[in-house]
């Protein structure tokens, strides 16, 4: 049995190239189009909800954003629980992950999944296992950027 090491990739770099040549690429254009339409549609739904809050519930245009976000989060939590959101996510990619619905799905899905470990040590501890970084880095960067902005404003005043 002849076993000749012709162009057998033996180094990691060589194998990486070997794999790259044989790996199907992601359908970048198709994914981008799907993300565009689904993301845009979710924002349009948000706009509708926002206008309904402004028109019928007495919120002004700016503060209606708050209950709108809460409503979208509610809907996302329900769709997550019904087992529908993950299918949508596979199809739409960033179209469902980037809107605040993606944040809600990551919290709801973690909470639902870890109920088997109890409400305190399961749901309570693991709820933010995917969404945690968003809060951590949102807060930290807000703190840093706000400092920079304040210093900048002070500088301009002088």
């Amino acid at each position: 049995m002849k076993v000749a090491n012709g162009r057998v990739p033996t180094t990691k770099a060589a194998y990486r190239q070997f794999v790259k040549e044989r790996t199907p690429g992601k359908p970048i254009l198709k994914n981008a189009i799907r993300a565009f339409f689904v993301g845009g549609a979710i924002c349009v739904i948000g706009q509708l909800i926002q206008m309904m809050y402004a028109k019928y519930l007495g919120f002004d245009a700016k503060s209606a954003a708050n209950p709108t976000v809460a409503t979208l989060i509610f809907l996302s939590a329900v769709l997550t629980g019904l087992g529908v959101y993950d299918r949508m996510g596979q199809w739409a990619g960033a179209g469902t992950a980037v809107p605040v619905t993606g944040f809600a799905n990551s919290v709801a899905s973690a909470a639902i999944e870890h109920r088997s470990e109890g409400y305190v040590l399961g749901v309570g501890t693991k709820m933010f296992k995917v969404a945690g970084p968003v809060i951590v880095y949102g807060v930290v960067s807000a703190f840093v950027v706000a400092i920079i902005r304040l210093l900048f404003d002070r500088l301009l005043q002088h």
Partner: protein
Amino acid sequence: MIFLWAFLIGGLICVFGQLLMDTTKWTPGHIMTFLVVIGVVLGGIGVYDPLIKFAGAGATVPITSFGNALVHGALSEAKMHGWIGLITGIFEVTSAGISAAIIFGFFASVVFRAKG
């Protein structure tokens, strides 16, 4: 008209996120975090609020608006109460999002079962 802009701007922010997902090793978690930080920066510069006026929900629905809300909370509280406001004010504006996520996420765990 605002519906058109909501659709376009919201869609474009999502396309940006999708391209990051498909061309880098970043996970959706990384991308959500990155977009929040972008929202913070754009909000700190003062560019995000005009975008909200222009695109409505196209700018308030994506996770970037979280970042904008966080930095505005810090800044407006600091204007009123000095430097300590940077810490006390952060969650003022955005509490709807975080509270809703926790509350509805929790109740979802009570009502629903994971379907696999």
